[in-house]
């Protein structure tokens, strides 16, 4: 394609696009004009016939990125359980991303509230495990607060060894029971 021909196309295409935008989003003038200006700029810079498609893609991309992020966070939030080592309440690194997703949601929804439950395996006495379960729940609560969640949105409860997920008393079962659960 010759450069002169391209120029001719642009001369025809640009006003048409602007017109099209005006008709569809006429109720919002500023938005339209911004759109038009962006279109013009992009068109001028890109300088080829794919310009209209590219405008849509950028917007979609941004939208898709937001949606993708939301989806990802929602997926991460579906994980509402963290597991701990024996007699330990330290949060393991693999849960940071998950907790960030929960924190983002709680920051975005200040009226939302979460209960952090602390649980233990069946080793040790029930009373000691209540104390240990509270320590686990509080360590998660503190982590969320450090990520900007208001303390009024978080409450904790320790069930100790009273609500085990797996009662088979194997090492694997013990590991499953040593957990914190986020309940909305």
């Amino acid at each position, binding site marked *: 394609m010759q450069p002169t021909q391209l120029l001719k196309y642009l001369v025809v295409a640009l006003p048409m696009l602007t017109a099209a935008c005006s008709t569809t989003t006429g109720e919002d003038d500023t938005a339209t004009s911004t759109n038009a200006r962006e279109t013009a700029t992009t068109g001028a810079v890109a300088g080829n016939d794919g310009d209209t498609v590219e405008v849509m893609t950028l917007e979609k991309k941004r939208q898709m990125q937001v949606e993708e992020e939301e989806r990802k966070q929602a997926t991460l939030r579906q994980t509402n359980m963290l597991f701990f080592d024996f007699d330990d309440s330290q949060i393991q690194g693999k849960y940071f991303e998950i907790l960030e997703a929960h924190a983002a949601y709680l920051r975005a929804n200040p009226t939302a509230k979460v*209960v952090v439950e602390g649980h233990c395996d*069946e*080793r*040790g*006495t*029930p*009373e*000691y495990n*209540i*104390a*240990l379960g*509270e*320590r686990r729940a509080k360590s998660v609560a503190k982590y969320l607060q450090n990520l900007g969640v208001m303390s009024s949105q978080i409450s*904790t*409860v*320790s*069930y*100790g060894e*009273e*609500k085990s997920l797996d*009662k*088979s*008393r194997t090492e694997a079962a013990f590991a499953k029971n040593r957990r914190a659960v986020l309940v909305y």
Partner: protein
Amino acid sequence: MKKVLTLVFGLLFVTPSFAAIEILITEGLDGAKPIAVVPFSYDGIQTLPVSLADVISADLARSGKFNPKAVMEMPQQPITDKDVDFAAWAEKGIDTIILGQIRDTRPGVFSVTYQIIDIIRGQITGGGAQMLSDGQLVTSNDHIMLASRPIQFEPADFRRVAHAISDNVFEKLTGIKGAFQTKIAYVLVTEQPQRPYQLVVADYDGYNEQEVIRSNEPLMSPTWSPDATKLAYVTFENRQAQIFIHDLYSGSREMIASYPGINGAPKWSPDGSKLAMVLSKDGNPEIYVMDLLTRKLTRVTNNRAIDTEPSWYPDGQSLVVTSEIGGRPQLYQIDLRTGKKKRLTFTGEMNLGGSITPDGKSLITVNRTRGNYHIARQDLRTGAIQVLTKTYLDESPSVSPNGNMIIYSTLHGQNQVLALVSVDGRFKARLPSGIGQVKSPAWSPYM
């Protein structure tokens, strides 16, 4: 009318699904004293609901101090002391026998008398020793160690009367007060979807279970008031731990602690006026003592470590507590007047759930050594520790009011069950339950 009421109550309270707690003796009859409870004679027409001799035999076996012989091993079944063939019993190595006679006095009422016979003494005197009394020769019958007056009772009271006889026999022969008429409170967790958590009170041998309360949320840590009329316990029914006091006669319940965080591990003071408990309202688990009259709280511990499981010394002046202040949980004595803290346990990776025996001489603990949790006894004077159990995941030990036995929770197969061990560690028995997990046993004071 009374009978009808008893029947109705029976139907209401006795849940047949878990009525089958029976005791399996797992260790320790060999060193115990041989004894025979001869089947009691019966003169009457009404059918007997329970064999008194069987219940008494089981009680004595469970005390760990006696080895009651089966009927098959008895050389004879005498009705009164006049029928006893002393030589035959002595030959079997049995030096004490219990005889009893039951009559039905009128419809719905029975009467029983019983005697403890000393076979050795009887063999020496031939059952007809004579002694001088006011210058006259009289028959002394000193081979009869105890002859009871007639006891009148109703059919529903058979087991209670048997336990009462066991108490008298035990005390006469050992000098230790019997605890066979006591009860245990425990938590039962079933698989059923509706209200799986139950707080149950039963006779110490597992019979006569009565459901105290049933909940959708966990129940924990029952503790008896010293007069045995009330229980304090922890309930999660309101989605947080709260301490309730429950009157066993009226069924009325009162919430006494519902602070933010933990409200746990209640323990009644020996005089009944206070309740020790664990609250984490000020940040982390600390021991408090609540005056039950004024509801005033006194904070006992104040540090950044976990403090839990308070238990009273028999004199009510000190507490045993589990504290993590030295890194791992160990047991400490805290003097309530001075606030002074003294570490009690040094053996094992952890010591938890401590309590002092009624004589004040021993500390009972859940000892963790090489990853295994066992019930152990530490001599408070010498510090020597003796591991009493060999079972798996042992916890929640509770000592009988006479200091003779410990009931605790352990794992058997896939289930948490209750087990007994004598304070000297020689006798062991298991109380298997039909269904569910049985835990947090609390032995009542004398009723």
